[in-house]
């Protein structure tokens, strides 16, 4: 299971995630980003500090979120990745696309 909470920091929407981002929860994550875009958000930071596991479906949902944000002229960053998330980002090459930051503040400052 997973929980998402969103908060605005200036024009940036921070998505705090907690739990597993996997086949079960990937659709929900897409909906969180889509809902943000629908209300006018363009810039997203996804805080993965409390995410204990990400599988390929979860990675796919992050890619989908990134594409959705870029479609409206925005972008998406991820941060605070665990050792497991770093492992799958590295093996899939998605670290080069999703650019993980160590902390929320660094991800916010990168925009």
């Amino acid at each position: 299971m997973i929980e998402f909470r969103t908060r605005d920091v200036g024009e940036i929407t921070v998505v705090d995630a907690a739990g597993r981002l996997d086949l079960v929860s990937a659709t929900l994550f897409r909906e969180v980003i889509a809902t943000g875009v629908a209300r006018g958000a363009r810039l997203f930071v996804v805080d993965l500090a409390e995410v204990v596991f990400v599988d390929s479906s979860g990675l796919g949902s992050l890619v989908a979120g990134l594409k959705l944000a870029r479609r409206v002229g925005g972008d998406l960053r991820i941060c605070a990745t665990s050792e497991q998330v770093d492992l799958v980002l590295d093996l899939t090459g998605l670290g080069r696309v999703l650019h993980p930051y160590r902390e929320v503040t660094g991800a916010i400052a990168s925009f």
Partner: protein
Amino acid sequence: VRSPRSDTRYSVAAPATDRGLTAVHDLLDRVRDEHAEFAAIDRLSFRTAIAEIVANVIDHAGLAQGSLIELDVVMSPNMIGGCVTAAGRPVEYELPDSVPLDAERGRGLLLATQLCDIRYDHVDGVNSWRVTRVVEAHSAPTN
């Protein structure tokens, strides 16, 4: 880091649904918590590979409604092994050489094979995926 002196076995049977995937994760959480003696990279790799296989079975294997997935795990001094089984028709998979970076699907099996040795078989109406990761054995404490 040390390995156990003898095999430790775990198993779970769960519906081939989202709820079943959660049950598998719960078992893998237990394995992780009870086997800190294995290197983190081995535990993470095995866990990720098993989760990918189970998710793939649930999402793509076309199992009949009400089907069960069974997972057996063995933690051995030199190896971490798992076997995922599900009754049903043979499953045909196509393992891609690579996946485009902007793809939203299709990475699961490739990722699993990068982390562990995966062997698929279909015998007597049962699909099985054997997942193996060889680990470096270390001396156990003598006390």
